[in-house]
């Protein structure tokens, strides 16, 4: 009986195999080495729509498939290429001119740029792309922040953008992936903006040929790219949630580049043959925020005392294993316009005690600290800070929360103290301080409100002269450093681990790898 079934199964299998196509019977699918790269990312991304993308993986694909009007300059720092975000250089726009009062910009587009299916990049496409951005969920607020009033066609290859007021952030925001120029006619033909979530219609250096957020994505060089031809013919991106797997695959050479390598693995990878660790300061910061409207943190002396009690060296060395650097202003040190004026804090428990006594809290106090889940370093930081605060009589009650709850709790602006990280994608103090530390700031969950900061920030927003503007931002930073709404913990390094022989990696503050800049030499 059993034998009959087996025989039957075998015959069926053979019979079916005779007629069905066999996926591996054709030529081999092996790729030649040298012009391909396999990269390991932790997650697969959410959307390919430039105006809705807001995670590293999605942004990476958008940057590969789309061009913007202008882009950030590049420079070298100690022999390594890095972005120069305060220098704006041509991309789809070959030149631009601001009106005398800085409220209107006229962009002249290059006339040789083509979308990936052959259509020319025209003023119409730019106008429609800006309409798409304005109507989007994610990027519409950047549109507002850039102060754009009206986008009009002034010729086949000329676009005029009017602003509501002079705004130096405008040119800073324009190179962001959110402001990609899209072939909107193609989008309309395919049924509208929803189509963009899974498809691309750009003029960028790569085409996304495959994207499955659960496993992998592939991009192929756009052979008819108008700009400099990318050196890598193909890039495969594997999505590997487990950090230790990314590290092992890199070590074995199965992937050529890995992102989000935990600090402890950076140390072990450093000794590996053929692995290069590129660990450089970014503008992602971590801070300990105290709610300025809730006692006892409404007294600046109490906040300063906490800032003196933080064991900074332990956080940098024990938690981050050297993959972070000291933070000395609310603005990251790599941001143009950074100033550490007024920053006097270091680990000094005597000073902390004295400040507490001055504030009438010589016996200490106790407070609630909300810890959001999802990041190992936060947890370790909180425990170390708790132990240190206990030495000056301050009891920190750690309340843990899942990340979605944590974000919701912050929104109420009633959380007494918390730590959180922040990356300003627009690398400018105006963007950074405006969202985080002005009275009206939409992410000012610590309720910091200071007239000096508000006033300097407002003046700086419309100040066209860089030196004068930075002076105003300097004043704001000094005030913040002194009043200490946050204790600054550290600035994260952007860590990219890759195989030796990979050249051209340029560090951008947004942490996004531009694959078209890379080449493999061996």
């Amino acid at each position, binding site marked *: 009986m059993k034998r009959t079934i087996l025989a039957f199964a075998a015959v069926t299998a053979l019979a079916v195999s005779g007629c069905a196509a066999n996926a591996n019977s054709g030529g081999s699918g092996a790729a030649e080495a040298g012009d391909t790269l396999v990269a390991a990312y932790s997650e697969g991304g959410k959307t390919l729509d430039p105006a809705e993308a807001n995670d590293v993986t999605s942004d990476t694909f958008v940057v590969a498939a789309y061009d913007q009007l202008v882009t950030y300059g590049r420079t070298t720092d100690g022999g390594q290429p890095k972005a120069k975000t305060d220098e704006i250089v041509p991309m789809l726009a070959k030149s631009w001119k601001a009106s005398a009062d800085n409220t209107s910009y006229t962009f002249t587009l290059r006339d040789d740029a083509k979308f990936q299916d052959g259509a020319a990049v025209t003023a119409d496409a730019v106008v429609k792309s800006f309409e798409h951005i304005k109507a989007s969920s994610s990027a519409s607020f950047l549109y507002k922040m850039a102060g754009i009033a009206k986008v009009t066609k002034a010729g086949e290859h000329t676009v005029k953008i009017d602003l509501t007021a002079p705004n130096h952030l405008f040119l800073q925001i324009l190179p962001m992936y959110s402001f990609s120029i899209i072939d909107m006619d193609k989008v309309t033909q395919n049924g509208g903006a929803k189509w963009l979530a899974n498809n691309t219609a750009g003029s960028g250096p790569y085409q996304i040929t495959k994207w499955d957020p659960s496993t992998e994505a592939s991009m192929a060089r756009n052979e008819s790219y108008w700009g400099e031809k990318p050196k890598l013919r193909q890039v495969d991106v594997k999505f590997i949630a487990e950090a*230790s797997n990314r590290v092992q695959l890199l070590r074995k050479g199965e992937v050529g580049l890995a992102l989000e390598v935990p600090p402890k693995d950076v140390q072990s990878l450093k000794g590996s043959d053929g692995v290069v660790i590129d660990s450089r300061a970014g503008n992602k910061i971590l801070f300990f925020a105290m709610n300025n409207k809730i006692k006892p943190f409404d007294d600046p002396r109490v906040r300063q005392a906490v800032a003196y009690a933080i064991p900074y060296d332990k956080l940098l060395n024990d938690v981050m294993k050297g993959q972070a650097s000291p933070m000395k202003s609310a603005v990251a040190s790599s941001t143009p316009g950074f100033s550490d004026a007024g920053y006097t804090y270091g680990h000094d428990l005597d000073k902390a005690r004295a400040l507490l006594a001055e504030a009438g809290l010589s016996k200490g106090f106790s407070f609630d600290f909300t810890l959001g889940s999802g990041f190992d370093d936060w947890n370790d930081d909180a425990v170390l800070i708790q132990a240190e605060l206990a030495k000056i009589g301050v009891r920190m009650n750690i309340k843990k929360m899942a990340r979605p709850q944590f974000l919701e709790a912050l929104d109420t602006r009633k959380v007494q103290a918390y730590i959180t990280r922040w990356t300003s994608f627009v690398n400018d103090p105006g963007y950074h301080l405006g969202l985080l530390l002005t009275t009206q700031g939409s992410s000012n969950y610590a309720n910091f409100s200071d007239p000096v900061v508000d006033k300097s920030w407002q003046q700086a927003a419309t100040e066209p002269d860089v030196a004068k503007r930075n002076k105003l931002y300097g004043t704001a930073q000094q005030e913040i450093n002194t009043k200490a709404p946050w204790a600054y913990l550290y600035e994260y390094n952007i860590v990219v681990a890759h195989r030796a022989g990979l050249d051209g990696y340029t560090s951008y503050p947004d942490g996004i790898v531009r694959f078209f800049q890379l080449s493999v030499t061996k």
Partner: protein
Amino acid sequence: MNLVLRRVFAMVPALIGVVVCIFVLTRVLPGDPARTLAGDQADPSVVAKIRTEMGLDKPLHVQLVQYFSDLLHGNLGYAWHTGHSVASDFASRLPATVELALVALVIALLAGVPLGVVSATRRDRPVDHAGRVFSLLGASMPLFWLGLMVIVVFYNKLGWAPAPLGRVSEGVHPPTHITGLYILDSLMTGDLVALRSSLSHIIWPALCLATGSTAIIARMTRSAMLEVIGQDYVRTAVSKGLKPSVVTLKHALRNAAPVIVTISGLQFGQLMGGAVITETVFTWPGIGSYVVQSVLATDYAPVQAFTLVAAVVYLAANLLVDLVNARLDPRIADA
């Protein structure tokens, strides 16, 4: 046939109950999906816009009615965190999970049943003690740790296992899509390249996943066998002078079979759940890692759909168990 139909109809209230429960549970949990989706830098206006788009601004009962009407139209909803419909996400991932769980179940049965039988017939001998130690270890081993150890040892150090990356090796095409189960598909298309590659990929996560179930099936088989061995008819068989192997396999094992079938059905459900961890560790592109991401992103629709699928799988496994048992023991069918 009647029995099958009756049982299938009896599942409907259970399924409706599951759907309502999970719907209410996901909604009363703290955490705003729109907030999570928008990211921590988003303006409140952005969050409000997304909330409206997701339909979260409507009252709970309206959302529930909408959800049921969508379900009846075969629409499982939209997975916001991936930007795809849940149905298409499931279609691409569910076969991987089912294949992994099935292979693990086969391994667990092939290892667990003989181990249990041997332990029972050699009671209190060294084999039985070894089996007990294995069961204890297997049932209490943290799955993620086991998975990571397997990768470190067999992939990294020894180089026996392929890279923990998906279901086939780099450069090998997945077999032509028929069922989505790679082993079956490559057998049906005679694709030996894909067969070899998918076997070498599935064996390691399946072994890890099977460890716990092997232990449990072995223990349950052992106790079921011991109970049967003590019965009069087994003693009669032995006294008639039948060979011990015939007594064990024909008389004892056949009568212990209903218990083994029942536990296997339950274990299949367990394996689908255990796949959540195994898949994350081995980068297996199945439903498990997807649901973990959905939960972290408070993405309701995939979580609800997964619960629904899990309930269906459990009920179907139960039904199958009952039908098989009815075949094995006619008394059950009448009960």
